């Protein structure tokens, strides 16, 4: 087992338990791997590498909203790789890249390289994406995930129950992830 696998898996398990600091480190490290992975694959497919940061963010959102589908008894790298590859193939299909054949690759490919460009930015506009969400989801995400209010405070401010806040945050991020995936982003 590689050290990347051991480290990333430990961070993921802590994140699944609700450890936000470990989770932030995980996403930060994954974003570097994803950036190198997508940039490499896109340039091989003859696509502009400018799309790669959009893909990085799309994959991070997908990893986050589907983190409960990771089975802790299984290795972590293949799970991340499966999501990254799925999003890459989907992106190439959406952008109608003709004649691209992605070679079969080992799941280690996802952690093979690092690209730690600081402050990388995508063409996605978070505010526009949020504006398209139903009101309750948008307010819940703004309070809890952007302003950092606790769930209890957010519940009071939005006039929802605590569990409604949690559900709306989860559904909202999922809807956001889907709306990027279906290419409705201007």
């Amino acid at each position, binding site marked *: 087992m590689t050290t990347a696998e051991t480290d990333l898996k430990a961070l993921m398990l802590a*994140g*699944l*338990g*609700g*450890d*936000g*600091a470990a*989770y*932030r480190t995980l*996403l*930060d490290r994954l*974003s570097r791997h994803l*950036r190198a992975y997508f940039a490499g694959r896109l340039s091989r497919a003859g696509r502009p590498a400018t799309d790669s*940061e959009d893909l*990085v*963010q799309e994959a*991070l*959102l*997908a990893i*986050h909203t*589907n*983190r*409960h*589908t*990771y*089975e*802790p008894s299984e290795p972590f790298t*293949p*799970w991340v*790789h*499966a*999501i990254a*590859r*799925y999003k890459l193939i*989907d992106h190439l299909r959406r952008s109608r890249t003709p004649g691209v054949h992605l070679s079969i690759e080992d*799941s280690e490919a996802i952690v093979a390289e690092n690209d730690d460009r*600081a*402050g*990388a*930015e*995508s063409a*996605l*506009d*978070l505010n526009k994406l949020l504006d398209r969400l139903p009101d309750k989801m948008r307010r819940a*995400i703004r309070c*809890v*995930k*952007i302003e*950092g*209010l*606790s*769930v209890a405070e957010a519940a009071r401010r939005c006039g929802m129950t605590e569990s409604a806040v*949690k559900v709306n*945050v*989860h559904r909202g*991020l999922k809807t956001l*992830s*889907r709306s990027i*995936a*279906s290419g409705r982003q201007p």
Partner: protein
Amino acid sequence: MKTDKLIDMLSTNLEPVDHRHPSRALIGAVAIAVSTALALMLMALGIRHDLTNVPALLSFGLKVLFAGVILGLAVVSLSKVIRPGGEGTVSLTLISLPFIAITLLALAMLAMSPSSHWRTMLLGNQWLECLLSIPLIAIVPFALITWVVRQTAAPTNLSRAGAFVGLAAGSISALGYALHCTDDSVPFVALWYGGTIAVCTLAGVKLGPRLLHW
């Protein structure tokens, strides 16, 4: 949007999650799908009235065993393929075993019977009803399981995930139809039960990429 900002957002107020959620939701969906399919079948077609005699009971048992084994294998496989990367861990050979077994059994029965009986053994009285009922009733379990997979899971091979949704839905429907069906020859079960479940699986392969996309 800066990637750092997205990471900040996602890790702020992080909620713990339970990895057993997708499997539990799937089992719940299958339980509801089985009861719904049985209820629909009983309302639309009614139960066969001869379940007290032994040959009828044996044949009913064979049909339930056939559909039940397929359902069990389909659910176990489905709980794997609905997770990212899970498609590599399911055995397609294992899934085909019940179909191979019943085909061999049917061929043996045909070989032991005079060829003048083959037509009746294969077509029974109600082959058309069987051909239509199983795929039609399967629509309800198919929709239910698809909905739960969309809500809770993230398959990365959509055709394969769709195939297992179709396989589960077809076998649930066949379980229900067995309560009504009085065509008891093994070749009939192999051809029309096996065939309609295969049709449902194929429909799943075709619909998966559209319905399960995320």
